[in-house]
């Protein structure tokens, strides 16, 4: 296991410059691009004095290099500044209020997409001909689906016509859920709150199916190709010759071996998942980071917008780090 430790440590060290560069890129986008945040905040009619005051408040009157140092130092101290509206709360706290909602949506959408991807991918690797072609078309169509359209159609069918499921928000206003982790489903289980569990799952269904379907196409394709690859190997033929049932071979032996490329894809898909979550949240008024970001862009809350983008950047780096480590745990070849 010593080599694993070395790998994890070196990967950790490597991710520091990566995060640093991402932060710099975000800085460049937010500060150096044309477009004056101060003017955008106070409007064109503001007096020279007002503009100067706000500039000073935001530290934008300093030279760029000093702004950059302030910015990086702030992030290192986990100080993302304060929001510019509504009580000027610390930005990081505001983000952490919203993050669990996005996490909950992402996890359940992820589960939906992997389940659909595994089912369709295995089916199309076993059955050739019509099934295979249909599923291949499915994977292309799923990739091309526009999340708000799919979401609205589901809202219309299951919310308006059938009246089965709620179309907006995270829980019924009539039910209280005591928050511990901020993930309502988990919190309801922890506090043995049955009504809370029901309402949070009901509200979660449509958004996670919407996002899950759109993400599933990639998995269908990947599961199919890596299953086909594994199924053509000798050990599968040996298992068949021994008379082991096909289902057992597929699910136990083939899938296990097909899993490494699938895992890699999960890491890559995370960025797409986050971007998709922004659209899903906006469609379903889901109170997560995506709706938060869009709301604050509208209010010209410059510090919060910057903080949220930085948070996304750090999140992406951490997940890629985590995936690499899990990857090394599963596949010993990576460590060397």
């Amino acid at each position, binding site marked *: 296991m010593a080599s694993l430790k070395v790998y994890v440590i070196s990967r950790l060290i490597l991710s520091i410059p990566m995060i640093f560069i991402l932060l710099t890129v975000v800085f460049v986008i937010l500060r150096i691009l044309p*477009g004056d*945040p101060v003017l*955008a905040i106070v409007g064109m009619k503001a007096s020279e004095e007002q503009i100067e005051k706000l500039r000073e408040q935001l530290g934008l009157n300093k030279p760029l290099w000093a702004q950059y140092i302030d910015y990086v130092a702030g992030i290192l101290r986990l100080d993302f500044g304060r929001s510019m509206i509504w009580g000027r709360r610390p930005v990081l706290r505001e983000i952490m209020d919203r993050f669990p909602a996005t996490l909950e949506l992402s996890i359940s959408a992820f589960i939906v997409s992997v389940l659909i991807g595994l089912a369709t991918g295995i089916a199309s690797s076993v059955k050739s001909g019509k099934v295979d072609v249909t599923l291949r078309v499915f994977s*292309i169509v799923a990739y*091309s689906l*526009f999340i*708000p359209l799919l979401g609205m159609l589901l809202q219309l069918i299951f919310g308006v016509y059938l009246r089965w499921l709620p179309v907006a928000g995270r829980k019924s206003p009539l039910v209280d859920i005591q928050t511990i982790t901020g993930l309502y489903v988990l919190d309801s289980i922890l506090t043995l709150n049955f009504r809370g569990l029901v309402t949070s799952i009901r509200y979660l269904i449509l958004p996670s199916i919407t996002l899950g379907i759109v993400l599933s196409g990639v998995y269908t394709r990947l599961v199919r190709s890596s299953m086909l690859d594994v199924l053509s190997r000798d050990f599968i033929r040996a298992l068949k010759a021994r008379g082991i049932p096909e289902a057992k071979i597929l699910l136990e032996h083939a899938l296990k071996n097909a899993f490494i490329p699938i895992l890699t894809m999960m890491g890559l898909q995370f960025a*797409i998942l986050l971007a998709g979550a922004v*659209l899903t949240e906006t469609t379903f008024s889901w109170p997560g980071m995506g709706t938060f970001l869009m709301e604050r862009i509208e209010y010209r809350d410059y510090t919060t917008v910057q903080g949220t983008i930085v948070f996304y950047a750090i999140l992406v780096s951490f997940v890629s780090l985590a995936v690499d480590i899990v990857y090394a745990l599963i596949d010993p070849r990576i460590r060397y």
Partner: protein
Amino acid sequence: MLAAILVKIYKKRKIDFLLTITGLAIVLFILFMALLAPYIAPYDPYISVDKALLPPSPKHIMGTDNLGRDVYSRILYGSRTVMIVVLTSTLVSLVVGSTLGLVSGYFGGKIDRVLSIVMDSLYSFPGLILAIAVAAMLGPGIVNTIVSISVVYIPTYFRMVRGQTLSVKNSLYVEAAIAMGASHKTILFDYIFPNVSVIIPVVFSMNVADAVLTEAGLSFLGLGVPAPIPDWGFDLKNGQRNLLAGYWWVSTFPGLMIVLLALGFSLLGEGLNELLNPERR
């Protein structure tokens, strides 16, 4: 040349051929819609022409929106906006990304290292969120939308072209050209680029499919082309407020157009990939 490609695909696999043709047909269909919009649109897309929220009927085949504008006419004109924004921004990414990738990969050194790291980090960032950040800072406008979208796809071309350049750079025929005293320019554009350019159409087509969704996403979020310019993503958003009251047509038709166009380019990209990607042969 196109015919030759099609025959080649047809011989190889019938299904791939069908998918490619479908994709091409969809793309051409929408391209013609965009070109002919002023001639085939029954109404002015900018003004109210009837009562608000009329359901589809022979007079308004896709109904009218909340301002009494003809949805069908707005879709026709919207295809212009979408095509212009999406194609321009992906072309900008292609030119900028490929040039940087070619030069960076060929000359190497410090600039190459810095550029690669920057491009890798941009690439790892969620595309739509990157576009949102840029668009939010630049403010509304067609040109700003184009810039926001092209930033997302530059790293794709950079990485691809740089990788190819590195693999071709040390081959024997390039060495021979250097030995014969060819200039950097000749080597770059006559020797290396032709080898790199084979895969560009595939990547381009797939990127356009993705860019259609990014453009629609930006407009849906209110950061794209400003109102009242007809745009599918914006019109979809505009219909959302009345959707739950049962006025499904205002959102659904523009939404379906977005999916159709993205699907067309995806299918086309898939087909081209089967043919042009050397790994698939």
